[in-house]
Every structure is written in C-alpha cells, then in structure tokens.
C-alpha cells in the first residue's frame, strides 16, 4: 500500500530544487527592509557572472541582499544539508530511526571542542577560524566514542538504550560546557548564544570554511548508499553478504560526525534537523538510501533556510536562536517517533 503513496523520485527531487530556488529569492526579500520579488531576483541575477543587468536598485539594497542576506541564506542551505545528511548516515548505519548526531550528543561535544579552543586559544579571526572545525570535530568524536561505549551491552545496542546513552552524554558534556562558560568571562555571551545556534552576522568566509567539509563528507556518504541499504537487512545479514560491518560503521559515523561538527563550529548547536528531515523523506520517498540521501540533503537545506528566515524575522529588531525554532518543530516530532517506536518495538 505504502508503495503506491510514494511519489516518483524525480518529481520529488525536481520539486525540492524548485522549492529551494524559490525559497532563496523569497528569503532574500524578507527582513526589516522588505524588497519586492522582481527586485530581489534581479539583484541576485546581477551577481551571476556573464549577466550584465542595468541596476534599477540602490547600492544599499544591493548590499542588503548580497552582503547581509545571501551569505546567511547559502550558509543555512549548506548547514541544513550537512545536518540532514549526517542524520541519514547515523540512522542508516545504526539502524535506528531515532539516532542523529544531536540526539546522541555529538553536537554538544562538537560545541564543547570549539568552545574550549576559543577560550584557551584565541583564534576568532584569521587562520584560527579555519582550525575551529577541527577542534569541534575532536570534541564530537569524543562524544561519539562515549555514547557508543555507553550503549554497548554484550555487543548489542538496543534502540532505546542508545537514546538514553545520548541523554547521559548530552547532560555530561553539557555540564562541562556550562562550566567552561562560567569560567570564560567576557566571551560568555558569545558562547551562550552559539550554544543555541545562530546564523547571525555570518559572512561569505564562513560559507567557504564549511563548503569543503560538506563536499568531502557528502561525497563519502554518497558512495556508501548501497552499503547503508545492505545494513538495513541487519548486521549479521550484512556480514554474510561480505561487508565488514564494524569498519563501515565506524567510518560512516566518523564522517557523519565530521559533517555535524563542522556545522556546529560555525553556527552552533542546531538540533533535530537530522532527525526530522530524513524521517519525513523516508515516508515520502521510501527507504532506499540512494534516493534518501540526496533528497534529505535538499530538504534539510530548505528546512533550515526557512527556520533561519523565521529566526531573523519573527520578532522585530531581535533574533531568535535558530536552535529554538528547530526545537519547537523537532521536539514534538521526536516525542511522536518515540511513542510510535515504543508501541511497535519489534518493527
């Protein structure tokens, strides 16, 4: 029955790409200064190399679109894609629809790694900015190791045990992070806001920092889609089909953590994206990771773009942390999944 509900994959992909492009234009219109659709579109096109449009806009309008809104828009697209594809990777390789780097505490570990490096070394500018994702990655890996070791019980990882281990990890590393904030003095505000996630005041540079991580991480994951399908059969079955499951698992989790940690190092902790988006896409497009990965990445980009647009426009003259927005959507959704999962535990 469900197969019939599934839409054609190309239709979904096309729809998402269209939605993404439309969202970029719409989001660039919205803000404290509102711009008409046509004007925004023309300003955007004027920056496409080779296109020479006669300016019908003011310099101020150009700088609002090009320097204020667009870096942020693109950043939200990339971050959304990173978080969402990391979610697909975690859920697929752990065979657990509730697993995602945020729920398992990798995000908070990454935030801790980055915060520690900000406090102990000063590198908010220059080359230090590029090193931040690596500290973040180290923190994320420590969390990952911790949560997996905690959830491992006689070689088995139960679905709910893993989530509980994630809660413990989040609490523990969250405490370390709060401690860092308490001793950090003047950088405190910076770190607190960054813990709740924000894309405010981000420039093109931040985008350039993230893009290589996104490119590498996504490319690696896209080469693992068939293996993720095989692993859905069960770890033993995958081994009998010739896969080195432990090795594969570690690699995929590390790359998923890298994607997450890099994103966290630039925009802070943004929860639930990697949980909701892959789940919805699985309902719409089915379980095949060859389709699920690209579609979830696209959908995650659109989702985060609108979350950020809401974050910067919902209240006049003040930002809401984007993590708050995604949590408003994501936490009830997580509750729903948990309830459903408990009811059909065997499924």
């Amino acid at each position, binding site marked *: *029955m*469900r*197969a019939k509900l599934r839409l054609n994959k190309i239709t979904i992909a096309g729809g998402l790409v269209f939605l993404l492009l439309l969202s970029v234009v719409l989001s660039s219109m919205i803000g404290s200064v509102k711009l008409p659709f046509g004007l925004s579109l023309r300003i955007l096109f004027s920056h496409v190399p080779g296109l020479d449009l006669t300016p019908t806009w003011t310099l101020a309008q150009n700088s609002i679109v090009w320097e204020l809104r667009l870096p942020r828009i693109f950043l939200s697209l990339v971050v959304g894609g990173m978080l969402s594809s990391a979610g697909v990777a975690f859920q697929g390789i752990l065979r657990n629809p509730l697993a995602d780097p945020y729920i398992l505490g990798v995000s908070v570990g990454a935030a801790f790694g980055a915060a520690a490096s900000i406090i102990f070394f000063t590198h908010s500018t220059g080359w230090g900015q590029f090193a931040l994702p690596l500290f973040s990655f180290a923190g994320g890996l420590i969390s990952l190791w911790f949560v997996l070791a905690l959830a491992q019980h006689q070689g088995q990882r139960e679905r709910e045990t893993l989530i509980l281990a994630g809660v413990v990890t989040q609490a523990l590393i969250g405490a370390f992070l709060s401690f860092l904030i308490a001793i950090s003095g003047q950088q405190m505000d910076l770190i607190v806001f960054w813990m709740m996630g924000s894309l405010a005041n981000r420039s093109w540079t931040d985008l350039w920092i993230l893009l290589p991580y996104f490119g590498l991480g996504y490319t690696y994951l896209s*080469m693992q889609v*068939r293996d993720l*399908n*095989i692993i*859905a*059969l*069960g770890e*033993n*079955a995958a*081994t*009998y*089909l*010739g*896969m*080195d499951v432990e090795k594969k698992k570690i690699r995929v989790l590390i790359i998923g953590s890298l994607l997450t940690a890099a994103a966290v190092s630039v925009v802070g902790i943004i929860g639930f994206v990697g949980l909701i988006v892959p789940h919805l896409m699985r309902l719409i497009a*089915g*379980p*095949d990771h060859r389709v699920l990965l690209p579609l979830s990445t696209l959908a995650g980009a659109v989702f985060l773009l609108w979350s950020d647009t809401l974050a910067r426009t919902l209240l006049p003259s003040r930002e809401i942390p984007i993590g708050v927005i995604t949590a408003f959507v994501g936490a009830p959704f997580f509750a729903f999944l948990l309830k459903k999962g408990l009811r059909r535990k065997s*499924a």
Partner: protein
Amino acid sequence: MKLFEVVKAGHDFGNAPVLRDVSFEIEEGESFGIIGPNGSGKSTLIKGMTGLLSLTRGEVRYRGRPVKAIAKKELARQIAVLEQEGTPALTFSVEEIVAMGRYPWLKPLADLSLRDQGLVRNVLKSLGLWEIRTQSIATLSGGQRQLVSLARAMAQEPQVLILDEPTTYLDIGHQTLVMEHVRRWHAEQGITVIMVLHDLNLAAQYCTKLLLLEDGQVRSCGDMSEVLKEGIISKVYHTDLIMIEHPVLGVPQFLLTSK
C-alpha cells in the same frame, strides 16, 4: 572433497563453555543437518563456521583454509546464510531485497549488470515471487518473507547454503515450500546444504548426513539413519518417543508418546 573441517572447536560465553571439543567434516555436495536440543550449541557452531564469531578454541577450515583468514567478501561469494529471523520488515520491495544478494559480486559503486538483473529475474520467477516483486516486504507474511530471504541467498550464487532453523516461524505449507526449493536447488546445482533443524522429521526427510549435539559436544555424527535412533534421540531430548518408518518416504519419523 572436504568442504568444512571443524577441528576441536570450543567456545565459551563468559566462563560457561557452550561448545566443547567439536570435530567433524562436511563433504562437498552433501545435505548436512545439525540437530540437538535448545542450548546444545548449534547456533554458536554455525556462527563459528561462518566466521561471524571467533571461536575460543579450535579451528574451522573451509576448503583447507582457516575461515578467519578468508576475506568476508570472498566468503560471501561462496557461502550464503539464511538466518532464522529472515529479513526484517523493511519497506524495500521484494525485487530490491533479492537484488541485494548480488552485493558480494558488485564492484564498488557499480550498478547491477544485465547479467545480474537477469539472474534476479530468474530467481524471482523460480520461487514464484515474480507477481509480487514490487510489493514492499513489510506487507508480506513471515512465510513469504522467508521465501524472499531464500531468493536473496540464491541470487548470491553460493556454493554452500547454510540455513539456521529456517522454518521455525513458518506454517507447514511454507515449511514444505522453503524446504522443497532448497532440495531442488541442491539437486539441480549440486550446492552443499548445511542446515540447523529443530524438527527431527524434517531432518530425516531432507538431510543425508547429521550431526547430533548435546551440551556443546558431539553426541553422534554420520549418515542420517545411523544418527536417528530411538534410544539416543529419546535420551538426548529427554522425551518419550517412538520411531516409525515414514509410510511413503521410508525415512525415520518420531512420534511423541508423553501424555
């Protein structure tokens, strides 16, 4: 030609030994059954033989080489394993699941070749799954799902098929269906079949050689008719029973006599 040699295999879970000093051989082309009561070590033995579990003591050799030393992918091209639980209730289609059987043969990133696709098609047809190939396996019954798992194993083109209690959750109709397909495959392709069975009557019907385990040790091993003796079976399973000859097939069958 010796296919499997198990030499003084032993395994402990914690301090409790579940396998002790198990030695036997399986010849190529045999239909080999492993029987024994619950907890006698059958599943552990199978896991050791397929390299899923690293045995505490002893050695398992496949075609003369230690199983542990054979790469997983190479092993998967030779040996297919059908697990008791079969395939989980995923929303993949029947055809997609069967095509996964080609995994050990595919080059990284390469798609199914025309030959792969043809093979999958043939397997689907020969197991009567062609009509339901686009259905999600989550919608199938346990019996149909086990047939899909068998189809996946066939698509793997193995030389050895290992079945771990393949009929446990099946009704008698599907039991027979699965076992008959295995028998036909064995007869037509000459593959070696190794199966762990709970049902002694099925073992009598489908195996030519048997290994009887008790408390992790070999109780007896040899031709089916030598292993299936009333006295020893009754003792090993702690059950009152009588053995009769199957009126049609002429193999031993057991009837429980406890009231």
